[in-house]
């Protein structure tokens, strides 16, 4: 019988903020207390932020569908409850049974963002588990990670027993199967890890030892016999085989993205050279219009949400999106249920879609991402958008009644000059002029252009993985330059914190030596680093120093494509040759087309993984 922590937790809830985070009992939550094999899936941030994560909903569905197997959920409690739990010695608990996380067979953790890594340590420690894999044994749950960060897993690899690279629909079933079998056979932890390493897509970090050359530079990894030299990502060939969850857990709490989210396609082949998601989630696999409409209607009916969001990396690129939106808005007319599109392209078609979705109702705001201020730089990053595209979009949007658009830009992109930075301000000014010109006189005062500027962070597995990140003081200088060249009236300028981006950049391309840094920062009190008010650069710099790591070398240093990278033994299916070629095209300001519409551009993902692009309900 597993311990029920509720009687010890409940008295703490009276003193905790938002107790709804911890009470379970939501519609759609599943509880199978008698299952023989039990997994707990954790999002390493508070419930409010993690609840909407679609990957966890999918895995929760998949694992709970297995005979004799139960999956429960866990989130990291907010800092106020963590403090109470630590003082009352209440360990981290699952939601469904309120059982200690340490009592489960499998502890699955999604790793969504570099700055949540200290939260992973906090979760392991709060569960009473040693934070390093090497200090855990058969008496502890098997700790398996997955998610966007695994495409350079090295900095956090030592905290996990195994990591799944890529998509989990099928792999999670195999991982559970291997673990159940090992348990039944009484295998040791080492033997279990050997079996897991044989599951396609599973990376067992302890089987890969980083090597250094005489100068101390990274020189590749030594791979233990029997483990694959390169772990190739898992991918499901088509989404049709995996119906979207139609009854995900419906939260009581007002969470981020509180709506029914339906994944309409996976992958994006636009080929933006800075975009890790676009590189690592290839190829494009669409759901058919019929499936989307069926699942949206079913999902809304079962969850009771009043909004359905058609999610993907680029929903306007779905070949049947207009048909889907027309059918859905017709079906939902008069029901008070709305449709939302999270990502729009910079083109007239997207505005027409947004008009369809908004109908006569409220026009809340439109978001577009030109990313750079000059055509040259947009060509460098392969963002195939022209200034004319953007201005046409603005004309149409303000003509149609929108009074606010949000624009995303980055500074610090490779080859960027002061001219490119200043051009962002000039472009915003032209957007503002066009917006006002298309707004009736009395309403012109309400026109708003929100401009959000982030710092480019080069990511692993992209054509820019070798580029130096812009140094912190230079980022601050260019931010100031942009501030001076952006109109004030009618423009809201927002910055992504440059210090956070610096540490994100260190984490994104560091090697295994960073595990010591993460652990030192966490021991010094770093958690919830993704919350700007809790982020402390000083603490990270001290942690780097104590671990003997130079963070500027990792983030801002030059790298040669001839030298090994810490993540070379992890493959998203894109050969180095393709990334190098795209890098060369970038420096020549040459663009590359989208293979979902044009011809194959030679990224080799389809050949390597044995899959194809799926659009329009069929294969290309």
């Amino acid at each position: 019988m597993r311990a029920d922590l509720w009687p010890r937790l409940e008295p703490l809830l009276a003193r905790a903020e938002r107790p709804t985070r911890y009470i379970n009992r939501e519609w759609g939550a599943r509880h199978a207390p008698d299952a023989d094999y039990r997994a707990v899936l954790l999002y390493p941030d508070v419930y409010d932020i993690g609840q909407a994560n679609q990957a966890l909903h999918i895995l929760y569905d998949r694992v709970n569908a297995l005979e004799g197997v139960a999956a429960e959920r866990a989130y990291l409690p907010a800092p106020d409850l963590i403090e109470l739990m630590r003082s009352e010695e209440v360990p981290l608990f699952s939601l469904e049974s309120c059982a200690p996380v340490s009592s489960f067979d499998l502890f699955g953790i999604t790793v969504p963002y570099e700055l949540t890594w200290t939260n992973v340590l906090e979760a392991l420690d709060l569960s009473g588990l040693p934070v390093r894999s090497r200090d855990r044994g058969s008496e502890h749950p098997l700790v398996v990670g997955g998610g966007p960060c695994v495409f350079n897993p090295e900095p956090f690899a030592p905290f996990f027993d195994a990591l799944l690279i890529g998509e989990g629909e099928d792999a999670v079933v195999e991982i559970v199967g291997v673990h159940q079998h090992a348990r039944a056979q009484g295998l040791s932890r080492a033997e279990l890890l050997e079996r897991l390493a044989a599951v396609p897509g599973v990376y067992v970090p302890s089987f890969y030892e980083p090597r250094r050359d005489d100068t101390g530079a990274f020189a590749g990894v030594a791979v233990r016999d029997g483990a694959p030299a390169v772990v190739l990502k898992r991918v499901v060939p088509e989404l049709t085989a995996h119906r979207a969850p139609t009854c995900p857990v419906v939260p009581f709490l007002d969470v981020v993205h509180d709506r029914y989210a339906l994944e309409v396609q996976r992958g994006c082949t636009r080929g933006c050279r800075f975009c890790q998601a676009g590189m690592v989630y290839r190829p494009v696999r669409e759901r058919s219009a019929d499936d989307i409409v069926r699942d949206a209607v079913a999902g809304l009916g079962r969850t009771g949400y009043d909004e359905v969001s058609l999610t993907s990396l680029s929903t306007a690129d779905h070949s049947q999106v207009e048909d889907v939106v027309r059918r859905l808005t017709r079906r939902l007319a008069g029901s008070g249920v709305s449709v939302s599109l999270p990502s729009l392209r910079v083109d007239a078609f997207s505005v027409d879609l947004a008009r369809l979705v908004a109908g006569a109702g409220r026009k809340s705001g439109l978001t577009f991402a030109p990313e750079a201020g000059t055509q040259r730089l947009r060509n460098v990053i392969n963002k195939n958008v022209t200034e004319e595209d953007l201005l046409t979009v603005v004309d149409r949007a303000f003509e149609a009644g929108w009074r606010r658009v949000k624009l995303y830009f980055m500074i610090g992109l490779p080859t960027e000059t002061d001219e490119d930075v200043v051009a962002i301000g000039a472009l915003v000014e032209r957007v503002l002029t066009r917006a006002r010109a298309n707004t009736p006189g009395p309403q012109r005062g309400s026109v708003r252009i929100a401009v959000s500027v982030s710092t480019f962070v080069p990511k692993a597995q992209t054509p820019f993985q070798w580029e130096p990140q812009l140094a912190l003081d230079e980022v601050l200088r260019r931010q100031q330059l942009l501030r001076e060249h952006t109109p004030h009236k009618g423009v809201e300028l927002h910055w992504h914190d440059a210090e956070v981006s610096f540490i994100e950049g260190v984490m994104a391309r560091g090697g295994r030596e960073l595990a010591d840094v993460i652990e030192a920062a966490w021991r010094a009190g770093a958690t919830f680093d993704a919350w700007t008010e809790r982020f402390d650069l000083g603490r990270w710099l001290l942690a780097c120093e104590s671990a003997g790591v130079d963070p500027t070398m990792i983030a801002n240093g030059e790298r040669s494509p001839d030298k090994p990278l810490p993540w070379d033994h992890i493959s998203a299916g894109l050969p180095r040759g393709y990334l190098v070629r795209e890098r060369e095209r970038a420096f020549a300001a040459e663009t590359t087309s989208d293979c979902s519409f044009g011809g194959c551009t030679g990224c080799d993902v389809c050949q390597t993984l044995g899959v194809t692009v799926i659009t329009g309900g069929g294969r290309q």
Partner: protein
Amino acid sequence: MTPGEFRWRVAYEKAGRLRYLSHLEVVHALERSIRRAGLPFAVTRGFSPHMKVAFGPALPVGTAGKREYLDVWLTRFAPSADALDALQRVTPDDLGPHEAYYVSDAAPSLTAALVIAKYRASVEGRGIESEEVHAALSRLIGGGELAVKHKGKQKVFDLARCVPEDPRVTGRPDGVRIELTVRMGPQGSLRPEALIRAALADIGTEASVVRTTRLDTLVESEEGVWSRPV
């Protein structure tokens, strides 16, 4: 009265762990239940169409309710028993609707009509004696006013008005049980827990747990008679 609309009143509970829900969370949860049940709810016209539904007086986070109310307007008549059954099937257990009936569209709103709340509070703590607690409560109520701080704001309650009946205090093995009637007002209502904690402080003691349940919310006739809303 909107022609063709039927105002349907539902009594539901807020129990168990779900007493930790805020009022807004209860509202959202029950709106979602109504949608899941496929009830033919009316939608407001206007810029941002939403379900036509109205709730009774809010319950604080942590307070349970035995008999809370909502009114939802339906666009066609559905037999109450069938609609209630449909709603029960898709509502989390501890938020269960247990009674439903149609009311006249001319009836006053729930928040305006429901002015009396009956509470029961289980107070746990060492050395808390029923007679002493009752005496302290009576002294406080007789004293006139109670200032309560909530979320940084101070509110002053006229206790003679807010507590129209003498509280009943019964001894329990681990403390006391208090039954308390509170008159609610548009400017905010006295939380029984605040009054109880003040009374305990007056006699130099403290409760380890105060668990409050609103047993009933009532309307008041012109003659001053209390009854459930119909």
